[in-house]
């Protein structure tokens, strides 16, 4: 074709990135990679390898080691061996290593970008302009956290050896999100990249060598799901961090249930992309390009559910169709394409199957008119209209360039539809009215909300989901906390079976000889005293065995009722912080008034000395959380660009609390109060040692203006109630402070809705100290951070 013909056609023509340097690098490694263990390349045992291919043309890139359990063991041992020396380094020295990694990533940025693109299929524009720059940014940011670790996280220590498993959609970026905070906090790492995309992780291993990172601090082990499973189950691993599918996330939660492994999960999503009638529609359409047509739609936070206000739906759909016609699908190494190749045949099949299913369920499928490349794994940008909330394509994560569009009428309906999902990772809201945008942002249950924008990331701003999108955050301060734990925790004693009997003098109770008026203690549900569904009561005995009274024997139906009541009381979260503080102070006031009678009753179980301490400390602790109620605030981040990111502290929702046995009253207060101070509603099961406490507590709550349903108390046998609570899909978090077996049980049973789990791993907290019994640790578990990105400027 002549220049004259090109002058007439004004087509773009090919603009290939030259992969020569990257291929030379692969050749230098003889296109065969071993594991990176203890700073060295170690062949897999047995010598099993698999292929990593270029999805755009099917060509073999390299042979990759298949990690066996023995390989994983070697890597974990190397990480364990490296741990003491790594932790002994000053934070400043660790910061230097992280800084060196950031610099080295920048120095080799193009090689890394090209490797990423040929291994994954993503457009070179994205790997070059987005993925790799964000990798460098993440290491810089965390070099900073390493530097200020002692000041900012005083009293915390690293988890130890961290096992990390990352997905194939952003291979190197997810590696950075995992490794940077782990190292900054002083952990050592065994990381397993996804089997489809292991190459940049191996390139990263070489960077670790180049900068002289101490051997064993970072170990990279490749392989498929079996390798990941071996890592998850390895007893010497202290924490698992996983990004990937919700299905595998569940399996990992279950597999780690009977261990004290800390766990963070970043899972799937079906994120809403909400467009109001006063939005800049053309810009919103570009937002979709950056949302669902970014990385072929293989993005956990992709705006895959389009919610359009009815009045603009028709115009918007027309604009989207026209825009799809202009998207260019082609070779990922072409600098002028928008959509590259799908990572693997299995993924392409899944996308095709789900789109077919969508159409068979009545959806209208729009795709651009142009042809796809003949060779390679490609799928066109796709818009599905006539989709309804009940459609499969509106519920299931497709993980492809497929947008499912629905309409709404009002703001309220938009929020309802946006939240009508088991996921809660991200959302995008488009409106030129700041009142509308921020109200919707506040109401959508998602860890990240982008106002008039989408898919913006920064190392300083936490990322992570609500609900089945996982728990834990990556990035920012909250991301660092995932790799730290209170320094005292590892040495805390195991929980004792039941409080030791004490034989203190008991204060006189009523007139001897005459029968006192019977006092029937009931359950406390929805602000009312309720008889147990079972119609049974259980005996409560004093330390010396005498019968103190009878407590209702709650069952699963009582739990059901309590959860319903707690859910109905969610308005509590919207109560102004000052208002919550007022109620909490009032609780302290009323507790104080009943100090003597509560003490005397409690003393019969735990002894006078402990009873006095429990009641007095409880009053103080309520005061503490009344104080915290309006002080434990979010942050404002300043990511690059003209932008504020509001890191809001939001209540988690309804929290189930299994109270500790060792301090029946103080344990209850120490857990219930931070939960309600942060706006949660709770269903608490008091210790069976003294469930009669409920009778005192509800009188206190009733007289303190605490709205009904904020605190619900069900007495009974904790081991039975635990099961119903852990399995309940309308509970957002469960806290278990009982023995080791209970911790394991709660973790294993929580996988239904992947509720957030916080347990003591069977270790006793010293509730009588401020260091272990109150403060940030509790507050941080009582909130989740929602990052709302608000670009501004006219």
């Amino acid at each position, binding site marked *: 074709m002549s220049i004259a013909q090109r002058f007439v056609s004004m087509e773009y023509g090919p603009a290939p990135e030259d992969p020569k340097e990257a291929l030379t690098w692969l050749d230098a490694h003889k296109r065969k990679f071993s594991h990176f263990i203890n700073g060295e390349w170690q062949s897999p045992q047995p010598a099993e390898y698999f292929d990593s291919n270029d999805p755009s043309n099917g060509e073999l890139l390299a042979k990759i080691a298949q990690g066996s359990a023995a390989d994983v063991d070697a890597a974990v041992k190397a990480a364990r061996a490296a741990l003491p020396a790594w932790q002994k380094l000053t934070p400043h020295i660790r910061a230097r290593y992280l800084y060196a990694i950031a610099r080295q990533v920048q120095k080799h940025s193009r090689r890394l970008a090209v490797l990423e693109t040929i291994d994954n299929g993503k457009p070179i*524009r994205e790997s070059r302009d987005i993925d790799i720059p964000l990798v460098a940014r993440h290491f810089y940011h965390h070099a900073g956290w390493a530097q200020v670790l002692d000041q900012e996280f005083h009293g915390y220590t690293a988890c130890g050896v961290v096992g990390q498993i990352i997905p194939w959609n952003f291979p190197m970026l997810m590696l950075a999100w995992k490794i940077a905070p782990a190292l900054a906090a002083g952990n050592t790492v065994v990381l397993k990249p996804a089997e489809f995309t292991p190459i940049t992780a191996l390139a990263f291993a070489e960077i670790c060598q180049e900068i002289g990172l101490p051997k064993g601090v970072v170990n990279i082990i490749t392989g498929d799901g079996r390798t990941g499973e071996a890592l998850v189950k390895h007893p010497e691993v202290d924490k698992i961090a996983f990004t990937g599918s919700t299905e595998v996330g569940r399996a990992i939660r279950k597999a780690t249930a009977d261990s004290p492994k800390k766990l963070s999960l970043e899972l799937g999503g079906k994120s809403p992309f909400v467009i109001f*009638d006063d939005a800049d529609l053309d810009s919103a359409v570009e937002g979709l390009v950056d949302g669902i047509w970014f990385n072929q739609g293989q993005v956990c936070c992709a705006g895959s559910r389009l919610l359009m206000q009815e009045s603009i739906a028709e115009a918007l759909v027309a604009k989207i169709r026209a825009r799809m016609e202009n998207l260019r699908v082609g070779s990922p190494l072409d600098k002028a394409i928008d959509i590259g190749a799908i990572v693997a045949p299995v993924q392409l099949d899944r996308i095709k199957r789900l789109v077919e299913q969508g159409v068979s369920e009545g959806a209208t499928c729009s795709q651009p008119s142009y042809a796809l490349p003949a060779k390679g794994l490609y799928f066109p940008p796709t818009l599905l209209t006539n989709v309804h909330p009940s459609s499969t394509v509106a519920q299931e994560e497709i993980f492809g360039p497929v947008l499912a569009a629905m309409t709404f009428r009002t703001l309220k309906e938009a929020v309802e539809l946006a939240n009508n999902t088991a996921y809660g990772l991200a959302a995008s809201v488009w409106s030129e009215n700041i009142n509308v945008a921020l109200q919707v942002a506040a109401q959508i249950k998602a860890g990240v909300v982008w106002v008039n924008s989408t898919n913006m990331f920064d190392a300083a701003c936490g990322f992570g989901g609500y609900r089945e999108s996982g728990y834990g955050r990556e990035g920012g301060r909250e991301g660092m906390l995932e790799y730290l734990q209170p320094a005292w925790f590892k040495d805390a004693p195991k929980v004792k079976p039941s409080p030791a009997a004490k034989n203190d003098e008991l204060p006189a109770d009523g007139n001897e000889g005459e029968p006192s008026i019977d006092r029937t203690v009931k359950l406390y549900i929805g602000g009312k005293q309720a008889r147990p569904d079972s119609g049974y009561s259980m005996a409560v005995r004093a330390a010396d065995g005498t019968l103190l009274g009878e407590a209702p024997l709650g069952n699963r139906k009582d739990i059901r009722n309590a959860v319903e009541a707690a859910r109905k009381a969610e308005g509590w979260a919207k109560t102004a912080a000052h208002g919550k503080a007022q109620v909490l102070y009032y609780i302290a006031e009323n507790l104080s008034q009943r100090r003597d009678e509560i003490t005397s009753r409690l003393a019969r179980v735990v002894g006078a000395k402990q009873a006095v301490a429990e009641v007095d400390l409880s009053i103080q602790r309520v005061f503490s959380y009344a104080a915290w109620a309006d002080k434990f605030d979010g942050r404002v981040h300043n990511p690059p660009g003209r932008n504020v990111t509001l890191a809001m502290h939001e209540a988690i929702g309804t929290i189930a609390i299994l109270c500790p046995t060792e301090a029946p009253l103080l344990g209850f207060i120490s857990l219930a109060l931070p939960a309600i101070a942060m706006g949660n509603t709770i269903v608490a099961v008091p210790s069976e040692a003294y469930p009669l406490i409920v009778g005192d507590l509800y009188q206190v709550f009733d007289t303190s203006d605490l709205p009904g349903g904020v605190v619900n108390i069900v007495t009974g046998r904790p081991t039975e109630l635990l099961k119903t609570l852990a399995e309940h899909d309308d509970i957002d978090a469960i806290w278990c402070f009982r023995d080791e077996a209970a911790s394991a049980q709660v973790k294993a049973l929580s996988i239904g809705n992947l509720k957030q789990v916080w347990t003591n791993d069977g270790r006793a907290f010293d509730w009588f100290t401020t260091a272990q019994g109150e403060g940030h640790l509790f507050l941080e578990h009582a909130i989740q951070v929602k990052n709302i990105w608000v670009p501004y400027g006219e």
Partner: protein
Amino acid sequence: MAVRQNATRDEALSVASKPPQKESSSVHHTNNSLIPNKGMPLNLDLIDEIEINTSAVERRAASLVTRRTVKKEWQAAWLLRAITCMDLTTLSGDDTHERVLRLCAKARRPLQQHLVDQLGIKELDIKVAAVCVYHNFVETAVTALEGTGINVAAVSTGFPAGLSPLAERVGEVRRSVEAGAQEIDIVITRAHVFGGEWQALYDEVATFKEACGKAHMKAILGTGDLLTLRNVARASVVAMMAGSDFIKTSTGKETVNATLPVGIVMARAIREYFRHTGMMVGFKPAGGIRTAKQSLEWLAMMKEELGTPWLNADLFRFGASGMLADIERQLEHFATGRYSADYRHPIA
């Protein structure tokens, strides 16, 4: 820009990316193909409905230039296209007849013969679209360009501020048309935009259009003065309703001239206007466009936001002077493989 009503014309929207072909296959771009915009009555609803999110438009501009690029033969072809879309301009206080003659000579032969030969593009007869001058030099330019198919454009209406009495501004248009200018670049009264005086703005532009007669009218919005993209979008729509054949960013005299975000907003306004009326209005970024690379970015923006038909001189112009020299250097590099120097190319 949001349009909440009359949004049912699905086909019109999809056409925005593929409008009817009108002589776009022709390699010659002369004034013959300039089709007038008939305008429409002022519709204030369309103004009210305009929504522009500045940050989002800026992100679009930033990502657009990284999403599209042309290389090798395609780049050469695109750069040639940029030349054919140029309004080669001189608007200085020290302009003289001789200076204008020199510019016209360059307009006729923008590329050295050896480059034309090496690129094999003799048949394209590459020349710029128009020469843009002050009224005083219209006759000089018309004479110099006679028979070339290159138009003469006159900046008018009290350029660049546009604040002389209306009668004088209208008279100026008439005189330039009488002198032979085929294109008139008018400036709007920016105050009308600040005050939201859309009727006044509409009347002003419509008056100029009437004075232009058969001459093609480009309305300069002075986007650097308008400050917000929202204002740019509103002024664009009013100017088109009032019959502007082109909308143009700047006089080149404002502190901020043609920027890509402004271009995107104006291109989208053109798209909406086309959707409503079926009439294709042209776009002219002017000021601050100096490099070959910029010319490619602007062409890519037009192709992406409006489609290939808007890559022709009848619907797209660059207001530039220095850009040509850089394009020549890049074409020389393409032809020879060696980097060139400014002084090796004849100046305009």
